[in-house]
């Protein structure tokens, strides 16, 4: 663990967070109000007085298991830490630390994170606007940003007044950095109640004795005084009718400390780092530790939970592994007991296992290796590259499948609930279809297309991880496991078929250019392509129509010309056009291959492009970067068709 000399602490904190893309609109509105009304009270003082270099806590297994509520979902601390770091820095870890190691430092010894470069600023103009030196690597520490914080607030306030479509990239980036800095500060102070602070260095010995504080521990912690609030109250209560001039030193000291406590509890209210569940009017409500203090919950389980959190922080500070684990376990048990039978809590260990196994990243790597070996197998006369690529692909596929099943078990839902999961499923489907093609033809084309689809789509899926929780809650209208598992599964299977037809179309054209004499192989590639197109058409049609059935069930109309429906219809229309144009002999094999590649563009437009329009019932999460990616993809594919299709036609008659 890295230890740094702390430089500053910032006791002023705010409680606002919105990491979710889906809630960006709400965020934009709230931000304006928030900026207008929230005082930014950064007082700086020497941290040397309060920060003690902690001893090392080597094992965070129990810490990882602590449940946290984030955007309506209960997740393990490990997932929360990973999400937080991914959103802030674009990386799921810091230097050689795992996300939970860094996160534990932020919670329990925050001063050591001030110099950690975790704020990703993509646009150099943002750094210039904040008058801070531009860093290479685009990552800044809180200390770096510190000088420009006033300016950041001012610029973010101005940007928030603009309509989202009128904001420039720099303005969006300013808002993002401001939101991240706010969440960082929120977490920076999340456990301040459990650390000694000079504000609670009581000078009145009588007060220390009266409220039974240990006299050798000053400065005290906020929590020490909160747990003795009853004794403090007994001193303060009679003062209502007593003039201030008549207060004794004990009474004046009690008033002073209670005022400080009140100010602290108000300052840290509405933190988004919520850990403590309560049942209020039959509804589940979660509170942060600070809110539990501020709202004065003094029931035994709440006090026990707060005490466990104090012990957790103390054990970390003192490097007491056993105490740390016991406190974490104790806290977790309290949460589980309070929410007995909760499904999300029951599968939390599965999620930790899923995070630790890192299955999709491993599968991506293996698909990548398999692709290069399959490419070699195509050109080689040896059997071993063929077998090796098959073995690697099967292992990658098993990891991929396991990952998908684990996600399904953790969420208790079908494989697809958001854009991220459609990429996971479509890549999986493409791999299966490639296996079928290989089983029928045994010429490495199946391995090649499986591996290339697997690696590219899985790699692309990773960009959605940065946008928030990939296992987030499903809104009421989508909350139907039956329709999610029928409509969404079939339509994405259709996407997979058409995409794979496009991939095979590439292979066909390249093969026709390189080796037009091998007509037998070209024919088999052609059949594989047509097979995939047929599969794509069948499932796109079924998926589109099942979408209509779902719409009929939910909204009372089968078809409404919504952009997503239109996108799906376009896939079906394009596949039908290709088949019928082939029958009329308007197009030949080469044009068919080019048409399949163009079909891939249509699939990407239907899958992602219509979301960019921002209209209709299906316009869920996207980022501006996605538009550029789609634009580049389309351009590259069109260029490929423009170069290879005429070239292949020229070469083929000669053969």
């Amino acid at each position: 663990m890295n230890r740094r000399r702390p430089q500053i602490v910032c006791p002023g904190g705010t409680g606002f967070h919105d990491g979710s893309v889906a809630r960006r609109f709400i965020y934009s509105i709230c931000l304006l109000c928030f900026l207008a009304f929230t005082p930014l009270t950064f007082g700086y003082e020497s941290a040397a007085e309060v920060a003690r270099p902690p001893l090392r806590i080597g094992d965070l297994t129990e810490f990882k298991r602590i449940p946290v509520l984030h955007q309506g979902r209960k997740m393990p601390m490990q997932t929360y830490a990973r999400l937080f770091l991914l959103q802030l820095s674009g990386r799921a870890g810091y230097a050689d630390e795992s996300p939970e190691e860094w996160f534990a430092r932020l919670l329990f010894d925050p001063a050591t994170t001030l110099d950690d470069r975790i704020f990703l600023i993509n646009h150099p103009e943002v750094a210039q606007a904040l008058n801070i030196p531009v860093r290479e690597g685009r990552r800044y520490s809180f200390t770096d940003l510190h000088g420009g914080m006033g300016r950041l607030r001012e610029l973010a306030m101005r940007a928030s007044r603009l309509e989202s479509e009128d904001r420039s990239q720099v303005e969006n980036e300013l808002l993002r950095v401001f939101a991240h800095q706010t969440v960082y500060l929120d977490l920076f102070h999340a456990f301040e109640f459990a650390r000694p602070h000079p504000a609670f260095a009581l000078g009145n010995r009588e007060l220390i004795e009266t409220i039974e504080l240990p006299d050798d521990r000053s400065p005290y912690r906020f929590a020490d005084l909160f747990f003795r609030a009853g004794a403090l109250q007994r001193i303060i209560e009679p003062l209502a009718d007593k003039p201030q001039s008549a207060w004794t030193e004990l009474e004046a000291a009690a008033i002073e400390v209670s005022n400080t406590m009140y100010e602290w509890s108000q300052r840290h209210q509405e933190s988004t780092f919520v850990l403590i569940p309560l049942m209020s009017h039959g509804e589940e409500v979660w509170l942060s530790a600070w809110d539990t203090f501020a709202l004065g919950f003094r029931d035994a389980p709440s006090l026990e939970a707060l005490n466990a959190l104090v012990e957790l922080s103390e054990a970390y500070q003192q490097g007491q592994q056993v105490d740390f684990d016991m406190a974490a376990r104790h806290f977790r048990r309290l949460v589980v007991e309070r929410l007995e039978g909760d499904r999300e809590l029951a599968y939390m260990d599965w999620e930790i296992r899923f995070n630790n196994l890192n299955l999709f990243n491993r599968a991506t790597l293996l698909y990548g290796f398999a692709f290069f070996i399959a490419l070699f197998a195509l050109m080689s006369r040896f059997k071993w590259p063929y077998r090796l690529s098959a073995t690697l692909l099967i292992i990658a596929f098993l990891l991929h499948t396991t990952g998908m099943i684990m996600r399904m078990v953790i969420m208790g839902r079908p494989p697809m609930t958001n854009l991220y999961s459609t990429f996971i499923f479509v890549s999986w489907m493409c791999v299966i279809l490639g296996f079928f093609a290989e089983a029928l033809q045994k010429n490495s084309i199946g391995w090649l297309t499986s591996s290339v689809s697997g690696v590219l789509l899985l790699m692309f899926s990773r960009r959605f991880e940065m946008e928030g929780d990939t296992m987030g809650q499903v809104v009421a209208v989508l909350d139907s496991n039956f329709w999610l598992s029928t409509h969404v599964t079939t339509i994405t299977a259709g996407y997979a078929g058409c995409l794979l037809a496009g991939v095979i179309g590439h292979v066909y054209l390249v093969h026709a250019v390189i080796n037009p004499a091998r007509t037998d192989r070209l024919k088999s590639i052609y059949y594989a392509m047509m097979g995939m197109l047929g599969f794509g058409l069948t499932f796109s049609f079924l998926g589109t129509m099942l979408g209509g059935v779902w719409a009929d069930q939910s909204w009372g109309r089968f078809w409404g010309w919504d952009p997503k429906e239109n996108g799906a219809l376009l896939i079906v229309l394009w596949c039908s056009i290709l088949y019928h144009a082939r029958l009329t002999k308007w197009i030949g094999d080469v044009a068919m291959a080019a048409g399949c590649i163009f079909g891939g563009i249509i699939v990407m437009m239907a899958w992602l492009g219509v979301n960019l329009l921002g209209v209709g019932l299906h316009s869920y999460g996207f980022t501006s970067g996605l538009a550029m990616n789609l634009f580049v993809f389309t351009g590259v594919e069109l260029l490929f068709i423009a170069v290879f299709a005429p070239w292949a036609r020229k070469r083929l008659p000669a053969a």
Partner: protein
Amino acid sequence: MYWLNKIIGFFLSLKLTVVCLLLLSVLTVAGTLYQVEYGLYMAQQRFFDSWLILFFGFIPFPGAQWVLGLLFINLFANMIIRFQYGWRQSGIIMIHMGLLLLLAGGWVTRQFGQESFLSLLEGEGSNLSSSYHEWEIAAWREGGGRVRDVVAIDADYAEPGRVLPFEEFDVHLTVEDFHRHARAFRATDPDVAAQVLNATGITFLEAARPHWEPQEDMPGGIFTLQAPDGSTRRLLLFSGDREPTTFAHGGEAVTFSLRRKRYPLPMMVSLINFEKTFHPNSEIPRSFASFIQVDLQGVARDVLVEMNRPFRYQGYTFYQASYADLDHGQHMSTFAIVLNYGRIIPYVATGLTFLGLAVHFLIELFRRRRNVV
């Protein structure tokens, strides 16, 4: 005979199929992009419910109705004349029969479907639903007790110069002006205000640009009201009127209102309770549910209507559409009500086409495998 063959040949042509599919693709792309600027309803009207489109105001292009109609004829003609009926073609036949059925179902829904909504407060009941974007000019005689006979004329007929006869009350309205979406104004001069009859005090209307979504439109019109004795008054009806306008004459009073078109329902629906739940500490909705009581000719029963769980009765389907939080913790729940006699057709068509596709491609797969072997 030559021309007949030519015509039949045209409708049988596979090239016509390809052209129709291409035209439909162009319309779909254009209609999708159009929504960004003008909304879903306008795109539906311009591209998908129309027969002819003028791109850029002067380039004629067939609307989806033409293309779909032509596709239907093309398919039908091929089914009758060209298709060979046998086991090997069973997949192809099923696909095209399914598609024919799908097109037919779309036509039935378009011609005979009816969409409306019903908003109810907790404790409130009704047996009338309202149209989303159709309006009517309704009139009734005041003082008729609990039961009221209402005469209503569709606002579609309200074209300038037209006479709307309310013969039951012996009055006629001649349309001076009618706007699909209007802005209403009040005159400050009481003399001007006295010249126009309107309960809310509105004295003149100005045409405004219609909304993207027509349910947001606020229509209004000015009429010349002719009384039984031949005297006339200017009557102004605005959809935003706080209350209906009453015309008193010779001891009788007739009340007029411009309101959303009403549809009678074959049952009385009362909202008992509306419940909404969110995922903890978030604004992510978990469920919306309305507990309603449905009175079917004297037999009442409680029904739960929630997302993805509608209530169906005699061709009517009630869906949970939206809700509103009112003062004192009261809720208003809105149901979308659809009457669609062709509802089942797309289901059958989808099943048939999918089965056909599956059969066709499996036959092709095995045929190719056998050839390869």
